[in-house]
């Protein structure tokens, strides 16, 4: 009550009154008050021993008064006196040279605070009482003119009060407690010498060494102000720990700070929605406007941000421990299984979360944790990265969201990421002809590559085919210095300059330039410069010599350092008995963190396959350079696709075509329908509720990872666990197939039809036969076929049963080290790019954005691979240019067959232009400046696109054509800027 009165503003009046009053008078008043208080105190003290605190331990804090009630008027009297005394104490200035003022000295000598605390314990120690005391100290700590906390007689009762509040649940008390703790931390931050006092005082109590810290821990993950204040306070201590080894050690060894933080993430994660509602097709990731409406996600991000901040400021000891707990307590046990959930929706959601987390984390150490999880961790012995890459090829939203994730990843300028995704496949330089290695570092002095890219511009999209408002063409005056003409053969000049004047001269005919190209150049300039700057911290040039191609040893990727580190940590960390045990409360696990065993892994069967082939005799396979081989699932996918098309497309190294793969899986699943029909369905999995939507999702899943499905039958009994899981998997399919047999088939057919419609111009599809919806009859024929003829180089021993019961040879040996492969990431990107015409606009925007970003990297290996059109590759390697050329052909064919194509193009251009303007406006209003030119710059914003007027977004081929043309300009601009920027010597 006394404090609340103070808080109500009477203090101001008081201090004014006190201003000029001489200190001696104050002292006298104070003593008088105290004498009155002591009188009442002693009257009610059963032991009459006011100075001893030994009684404290006997007092049962929570029970009622022990020695008879204190009359109300007496209690009020004490309160009034104390209130006045506190004012006097607060207002007192410290004495000469920092000595205690007389009042403070008196307080310390007489042990005033402690006796007052005991007094309040004697009365009913209710929440109200605690609140009162907390406020009193908060006021004292916050407003006293002289440092008080250095004095044990003040500090000790404070600590007792704090520890008595540790178990409180009343929100008001908690709020006040956190506020006080926050204030104490502020004092600590300003004056670290108090720290010692806190430690010593705690020792006296036999309590946790660092009570204020332990008390804060339970509030780490709170939402609202309380949580924020607690986190702020903890951060203050964290930065204190950076300088104070003892604090750091204490926190790392004697508190649950790091585990609470990390497991808290897991707890918060488990309460996030497992399925996101996707607002529209263009949606590809969680952005601010999305997550602001999701309280659970906001809370998670707050905690993640807090981890980030802790890692930033805390002592390395704490930092390392936290990072390792996050790895082993959140990423591996929670996020990894979540990334491998059963339905597309769930997996898509987790991917979007991961993307958001990566974008939210800024501290290198924490980023490293996330990245090493993605790059090195194996879930069910498959690297997370491989799984993520393979999902780029999924239809539906998952593919789009996966693309967005990779957009984030490659935007980090992280050498490790780029190494794993692309560079390690390029280092050996066997994607190009041997003689070409020197070309890698060559510069394109005369913009030859840019010209080649621009020459791919489809006829229907050349500038002279677009009406003026769309062309954004402006006449640019060409001028030349007068001297030029004077010194060159004038006959040459005549052709386009009759006469010109000194300064600016208009040449007879104006030349129209594509102004948007200037913007692309500008963007490319910015992109490449920042990339070059960022990559200065990289360890190597990646220029075909450093690292040396011959010495490249892919090696075995190890699970990161965190594991061993963690075990060490665990051994060292003997939990000590903590007296007032900090209430470690990882946020209530409302939903259990997904348990690995119950989850049906959607593509783990891939490992089964891998393991099996690993056990198989591999005589012919050269042991070195496993990296030159694509991951097995991709090999399988391709191989099967090739076989399926049966001769129409048997060029081994042409990358697999999606549609063919879908076809294949469709056939395979169709078979499963038949086979499943005969099976008893006893072992139905419980989690499966075969609703129609659910089923189609699962189909989508198996669709996307044919290798996984194929492996179902190919698995052996070598790994029982995996076997169980894959069994479940096939059961799911069998079950659903049983219930919805024909429906399923027609769904597939539908899907394949839609996938096929736009792919008319593709060389691969010349054979219409192969993509016809499969009837069971044809299936039977396929079964009879001997596929061995297509893989003659494979040893007999490696035959694996295929789902269709066909003899099939594993692809394990098909790739020797000499077969060039530019990596699954590049392959899958190019493969999707080739299908540009049937991709949705948003997928294409992401795709071209990623490729443009990749092309901005200055590393000669990457640059030459993507942009140098003069480089001669191995015949089996597909280059970006080749793929673009193939897209051009598709477009030209399409344009030739459709008369309305030009109008459609114009409509699409209008639409895209409107969208661009809209986004630029939104951008400007958001950031107030920072112009983004060109499509590439603005793509990844989430602003609602304008409604297309004359054209439906379903006309993907039209939008793709427009985007394709823009993409060519973007690439050309990047190539041109490289020819200058990448060669500027960067002097250190």
């Amino acid at each position, binding site marked *: 009550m006394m404090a609340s009165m103070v808080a109500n503003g009477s203090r101001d009046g008081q201090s004014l009154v006190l201003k000029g009053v001489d200190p001696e008078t104050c002292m006298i008043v104070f003593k008088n008050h105290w004498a009155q208080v002591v009188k009442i105190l002693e009257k009610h003290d059963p032991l009459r021993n006011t100075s001893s605190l030994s009684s404290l331990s006997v007092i049962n804090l929570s029970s009622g008064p022990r020695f008879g009630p204190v009359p109300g008027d007496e209690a009020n009297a004490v309160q009034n006196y104390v209130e006045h005394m506190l004012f006097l104490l607060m207002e007192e200035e410290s004495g000469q040279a920092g000595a205690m003022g007389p009042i403070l000295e008196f307080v310390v000598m007489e042990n005033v605070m402690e006796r007052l605390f005991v007094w309040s314990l004697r009365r009913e120690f209710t929440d109200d009482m605690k609140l009162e005391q907390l406020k009193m100290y908060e006021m004292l700590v916050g407003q006293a003119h002289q440092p008080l906390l250095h004095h044990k007689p003040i500090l000790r009762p404070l600590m007792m009060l704090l520890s008595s509040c540790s178990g409180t649940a009343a929100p008001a008390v908690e709020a006040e407690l956190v506020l006080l703790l926050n204030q104490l931390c502020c004092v600590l931050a300003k004056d670290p010498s108090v720290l010692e006092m806190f430690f010593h005082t705690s020792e006296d109590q036999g309590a946790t060494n660092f009570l204020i810290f332990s008390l804060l821990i339970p509030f780490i993950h709170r939402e609202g102000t309380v949580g924020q204040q607690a986190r702020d306070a903890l951060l203050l201590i964290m930065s204190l720990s950076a300088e104070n080894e003892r604090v750091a050690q204490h926190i790392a060894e004697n508190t649950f700070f790091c585990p609470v933080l990390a497991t808290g993430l897991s707890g918060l994660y488990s309460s996030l929605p497992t399925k996101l509602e996707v607002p529209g097709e263009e949606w590809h990731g969680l952005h601010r406007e999305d997550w602001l409406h999701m309280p659970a996600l906001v809370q998670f991000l707050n905690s993640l941000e807090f981890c980030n901040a802790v890692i930033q400021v805390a002592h*390395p000891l704490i930092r390392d421990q936290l990072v390792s707990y996050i790895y082993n307590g959140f990423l591996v046990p929670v996020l990894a299984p979540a990334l491998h959930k059963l339905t597309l929706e769930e997996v898509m959601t987790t991917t979007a979360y991961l993307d958001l987390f990566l974008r939210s984390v800024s501290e290198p*150490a924490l980023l490293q944790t996330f990245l090493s999880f993605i790059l090195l961790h194996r879930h069910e012995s498959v690297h997370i990265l491989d799984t993520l890459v393979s999902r780029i090829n999924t239809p539906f939203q998952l593919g789009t969201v996966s693309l967005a994730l990779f957009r984030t990843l490659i935007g980090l300028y992280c050498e490790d990421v780029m*190494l794993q995704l692309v560079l390690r496949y390029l280092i050996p330089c066997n994607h190009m002809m041997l003689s070409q290695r020197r070309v890698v570092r060559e510069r394109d002095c005369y913009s030859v590559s840019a010209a080649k890219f621009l020459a791919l511009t489809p006829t229907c999209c050349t500038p002279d085919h677009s009406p003026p408002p769309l062309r954004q063409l402006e006449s640019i005056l*060409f001028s030349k*210095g007068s001297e030029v003409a004077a010194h060159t053969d004038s006959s040459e000049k005549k052709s386009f300059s009759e006469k010109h004047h000194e300064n600016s001269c208009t*040449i007879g005919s104006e030349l129209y330039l594509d102004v948007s190209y200037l913007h692309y150049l500008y963007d490319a300039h910015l992109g490449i410069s920042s990339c070059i700057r*960022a990559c200065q911290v990289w360890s190597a040039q990646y220029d075909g010599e450093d690292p040396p191609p011959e010495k490249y040893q892919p090696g075995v990727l190890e699970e990161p350092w965190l594991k061993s580190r963690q075990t060490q940590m665990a051994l060292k960390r003997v939990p000590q008995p903590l007296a007032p045990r900090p209430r470690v409360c990882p946020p209530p696990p409302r939903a259990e963190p997904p348990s690995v065993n119950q989850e049906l892994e959607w593509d783990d069967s891939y490992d089964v396959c891998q393991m099996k082939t690993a056990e198989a005799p591999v005589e012919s396979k050269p042991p070195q350079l496993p990296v030159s081989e694509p991951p097995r699932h991709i090999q399988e996918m391709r191989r099967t696709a090739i076989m399926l098309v049966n001769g129409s497309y048997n060029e081994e190294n042409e990358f697999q075509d999606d549609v063919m793969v879908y076809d294949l899986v469709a056939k395979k699943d169709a078979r499963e329908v038949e086979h499943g029909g005969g099976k008893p369905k006893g072992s139905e999995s419980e989690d499966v509720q075969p609703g129609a939507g659910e089923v189609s999702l699962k189909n989508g899943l198996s669709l996307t990872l044919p290798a996984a499905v194929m492996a179902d039958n190919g698995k052996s009994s070598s790994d029982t666990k995996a076997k169980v899981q894959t069994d479940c998997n096939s059961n799911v399919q069998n079950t659903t197939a049983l219930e919805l047999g024909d429906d399923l088939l027609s769904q597939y057919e539908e899907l394949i039809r839609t996938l096929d419609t736009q792919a008319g111009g593709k060389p691969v599809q010349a054979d219409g036969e192969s993509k016809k919806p499969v009837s069971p009859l044809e299936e039977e024929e396929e079964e009879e076929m001997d596929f061995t003829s297509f893989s003659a180089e494979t040893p007999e021993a490696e035959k694996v049963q295929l789902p269709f019961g066909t003899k099939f040879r594993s692809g394990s040996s098909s790739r020797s080290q000499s077969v060039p492969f530019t990596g699954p990431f590049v392959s899958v990107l190019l493969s999707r790019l080739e299908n540009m015409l049937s991709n949705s606009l948003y997928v294409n925007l992401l795709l071209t954005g990623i490729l443009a970003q990749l092309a901005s990297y200055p590393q000669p290996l990457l640059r030459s691979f993507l942009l140098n059109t003069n480089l001669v590759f191995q015949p089996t390697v597909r280059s970006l240019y080749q793929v673009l050329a193939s897209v051009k052909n598709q477009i030209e064919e399409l344009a030739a067959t459709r008369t309305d194509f030009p109008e459609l193009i114009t409509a699409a251009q209008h639409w895209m232009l409107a969208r661009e303007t809209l986004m630029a406006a939104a951008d400007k209003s958001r950031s107030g400046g920072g112009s983004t030119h060109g499509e590439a710059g603005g793509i990844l914003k989430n602003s609602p696109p304008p409604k297309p007027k004359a054209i439906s977004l379903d006309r993907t081929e039209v939008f793709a054509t427009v985007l394709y043309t823009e993409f060519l300009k973007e690439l050309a601009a990047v190539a041109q800027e490289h020819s200058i920027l990448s060669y500027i010597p960067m002097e250190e």
Partner: protein
Amino acid sequence: MSANTSRKQRPDNEEQSGHGEQRASPARLSLGKKQLPPIPKNATPITKPASSGTPAQSANGTHASYGPFYLEYSLLAEFTLVIKQKLPGIYVQPSYKSALMWFGVIFIRHGLYQDGVFKFTVYIPDNYPDGECPKLVFDIPVFHPLVDPVSGELDVRRAFTKWRRNHNHIWQVLMYARTIFYKINTTEPLNPEAAVLYEKDVQLFKSKVVDSVKLCNSHLFDHPKIDDPYAISFSPWNPAVHEEAKERMFTCKRRPEDHHKGMQVSGLSWVKPGSTQPFSKDDSPPQS
């Protein structure tokens, strides 16, 4: 005279030549301010967008609108090559008006032409790199067998009989311009008098050279021959103007680091040098 080429104050000081260390970004094509070079001959200009209505695969038309960009970037690339070469005693700078005209100055530090400071202009043909070799013209015709006594043009063609793209670069022309002052060649001279004197009466030749050098140096502070914001001009040493610039030149070596600190874009790497493994750095775990 100041040791450094102290140039006329320019409003836009972005374009500087010569010193390799001075900046990370080359002359950028800035809109509006700088005009594009003339249209190269091989690119037929589009007269009117509508009039070129022949839809028949107008690949040429597509190219034409980008032709100026190719030329501009070819020249920028040449310029970055010059910077990279760090030619001793040679400084060049493209003109403000046209990327096809470069201003330069050459300092001769020993030999017959010692102490000579010769300003020159390089003219690049507008069909670069497929045309003739660039021309190099001294502002004041230096007394030299290979320099035309009237026009001041250096006989470059004898060194580059055929200009070959990818093999010949402008820095080579500059290098050649420097060489002639140290190694005198008298065959097929543009200035027969100088050639004959050099062969017959070296003493007289030397004195003529000294006179020529003196003449050139006496015109050093003249207004540039070509009125261009980026033309190289000299002025007498004036501490009020030049001291600060000199200071900056000597301190600019430290700048890249400072640059680095304030830079927001920073890459990440935990790859140990010499390794190709991710997270292979010894201090890979976050240890300071």
